[in-house]
């Protein structure tokens, strides 16, 4: 299934892009992050990040569906 991945902050710098589409054959955000971490050498562990699916904060174990967007969010540092 096709998943749109959005990257912010450190993750965007490491990935060298702000979004991409990936074809995956599993539904786990943790597995997806594991694969992305390997590909782009992200420094954060999955548990340090919040997950937004279709622009809504979501539980880490939420199952992804075809056409979803997902963003892995580092700790916020606004202000």
């Amino acid at each position: 299934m096709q998943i749109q991945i959005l990257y912010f902050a450190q993750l965007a710098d490491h990935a060298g892009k702000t979004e991409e589409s990936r074809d995956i054959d599993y539904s786990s955000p943790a597995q997806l992050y594991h694969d992305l971490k390997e590909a782009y050498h992200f420094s954060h562990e999955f548990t340090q990040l919040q997950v937004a699916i279709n622009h809504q904060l979501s539980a880490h174990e939420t199952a992804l569906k075809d056409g979803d967007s997902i963003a892995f969010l580092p700790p916020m540092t606004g202000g």
Partner: protein
Amino acid sequence: MTFQLTDSEISPSTLRRELLSLSAGGYCSYEGWVRDHNEGNAVAELHYSGYPQLSPAIAETILEEAKAKFHIEDAAIVHRIGLLTTGDIAVWVGVTAHHRGDTFLACRYIIDNVKHRLPIWKKEVYTDGSEAWIESNHCGCTDPTNLEHHH
């Protein structure tokens, strides 16, 4: 109650006027400024990056929480994104209420939660040209009654 994510300069006097109300007895605001140093490093500028599709919902939740916890009339948050230099205003919070106590408490509650929950990230660029993403906001003072906490 309103929230804006903007790449333009923040004008507190304009924002204050938008909160003016004859039924309010007081107004409290907070401005977060870009300072010229952090943890021993000389800061030249900050890059703020946001998530515009998510931040309005988070801001609305924070404002609703403040309204539920404190006796306030109105509140607003404006956060700037993009490239900011020292002295710029990065974030503004304004609160009105019938009485002063709730304006202070609600303003503190909102800015503390903005710093930890609003999906915005900052990268510091130092005067020597190096740069670094800030990994966390160190002050964890989310308890608005904890007014003795020193930064």
